[in-house]
């Protein structure tokens, strides 16, 4: 696929609720003159069912990649951490387990699809770091030194673990997210307590109260680092850390006040895209404090 085109898989949660991620991703790519090609006929990646119904999960994830291959893509960019994880994990297992592959392909054939393994799922962080390139990010968008603004990166579990499955970064000491934030002129905290912890989202289907407490554990530790902003690329993590931050505060009976943004929103701001086109009005955390500092 050429450099100025990218095939995107939106998943479920972004196009049905987390519109800010879709808006900011679309406007950033438009500004960068990179054409988004939509994956046609796509459905859920199966992520929520990897525990309860593993075969359903494998089938749905394989289907996304089979569709991509059928539509002529060799790479696909899922915007969601969960989707990314579903795809790379399924790719990993189907390479190892030919019997399972056969079984899945029998199901896919009903839609005239076949999983051949020729599609590489790319994470958003990986895309900007390794495909768009950290160098061109720096050359093009390091417009001024913003190192007085300190940012913490939240990778999210599914972006980095399990280490057995090849991911875009080291599972125990990932650094690429911080690199692409610093490339825009900001400074980052390379490490903070519970940096690699979960946002709690996978618990929301069945144990929401516990899920919110997991999110609170993360947010409290971020708050203590005193950063100006917490950044993520995953809409499940964003839902927990931003959209539900007020509910989390109530459970802990403590003001958290951690400003949270998508990386695409942050990049969009640096590119000078208007706030509404980045969906910044959907951020429920107090980002105005950050925005004032950003505008200087």
């Amino acid at each position, binding site marked *: 696929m050429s450099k100025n085109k990218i095939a995107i898989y939106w998943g479920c*949660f972004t196009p049905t609720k987390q519109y800010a991620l879709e808006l900011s991703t679309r406007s950033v790519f438009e500004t960068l003159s990179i054409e988004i090609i939509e994956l046609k006929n796509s459905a859920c990646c199966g992520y929520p069912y990897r525990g309860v119904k593993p075969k359903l999960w494998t089938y749905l994830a394989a289907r996304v990649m089979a569709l991509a291959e059928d539509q002529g893509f060799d790479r696909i960019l899922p915007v969601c951490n969960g989707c990314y994880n579903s795809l790379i994990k399924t790719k990993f297992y189907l390479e190892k387990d030919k019997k399972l592959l056969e079984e899945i392909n029998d199901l896919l054939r009903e839609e005239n699809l076949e999983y051949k393994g020729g599609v590489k799922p790319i994470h958003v962080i990986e895309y900007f770091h390794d495909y768009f390139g950290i160098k061109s990010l720096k050359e093009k968008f390091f417009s001024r030194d913003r190192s007085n603004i300190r940012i913490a990166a939240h990778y999210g579990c599914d972006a980095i673990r399990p280490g057995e499955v090849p991911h875009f970064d080291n599972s125990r000491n990932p650094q690429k997210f911080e690199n692409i934030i610093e490339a825009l002129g900001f400074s980052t905290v390379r490490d903070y307590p519970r940096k690699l912890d979960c946002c709690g989202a996978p618990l929301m289907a069945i144990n929401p109260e516990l899920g919110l407490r997991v999110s609170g554990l993360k947010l409290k530790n971020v708050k203590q680092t005193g950063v100006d902003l917490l950044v993520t690329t995953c809409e499940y993590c964003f839902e927990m850390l931003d959209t539900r931050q007020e509910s989390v505060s109530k459970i802990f009976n403590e003001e958290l006040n951690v400003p949270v943004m998508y990386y695409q929103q942050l990049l969009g701001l640096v590119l000078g895209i208007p706030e509404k086109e980045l969906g910044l009005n959907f951020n429920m955390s107090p980002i105005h404090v950050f925005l004032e500092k950003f505008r200087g």
Partner: protein
Amino acid sequence: MIFTIKPASQVIRDFIGLQDPNMCFQCRRCSSGCPIAFLEKDYRPHKIVAFVNLDRINELLNSQIIWKCTRCYKCLEYCPQRAAPSDVILALQALAAEKIGLPAEYREMIAKIAETGFSFEIMQVADNELELYDRESLGLPKLETPTTIEILGNIVKKLGGVE
């Protein structure tokens, strides 16, 4: 119903990979790194693995413990034996869904996929000034249901055990 170690580790091998809970020597590193163990006194991944290895799977399947995992995989990262408590717990969830019943929350979501292709209903969302937006008012393209939804839906219902 009695389940022995075999179905659990078989599910693990079939779907989750190559790890073996029998490799666990109860060092407790998994529990030291687990955010849920930090928050919940009764949740200790190493104990869950011990119960599996002692063949006490029924007790686990009938308890709420196995539904407390947030699936973050930190335990596997901490495990020196790669015995994979996370994968053991996921396999237990799969067994519980099969033998005791799929939790209603998942059942609804799976039924939704069979109907629309997606796990969730398309929502109207309020922004921070409480103004409501949907895809159309935001200028986002219409979300299309897969043209092959009938075929897809049938497979999803079959694999998800939802009729």
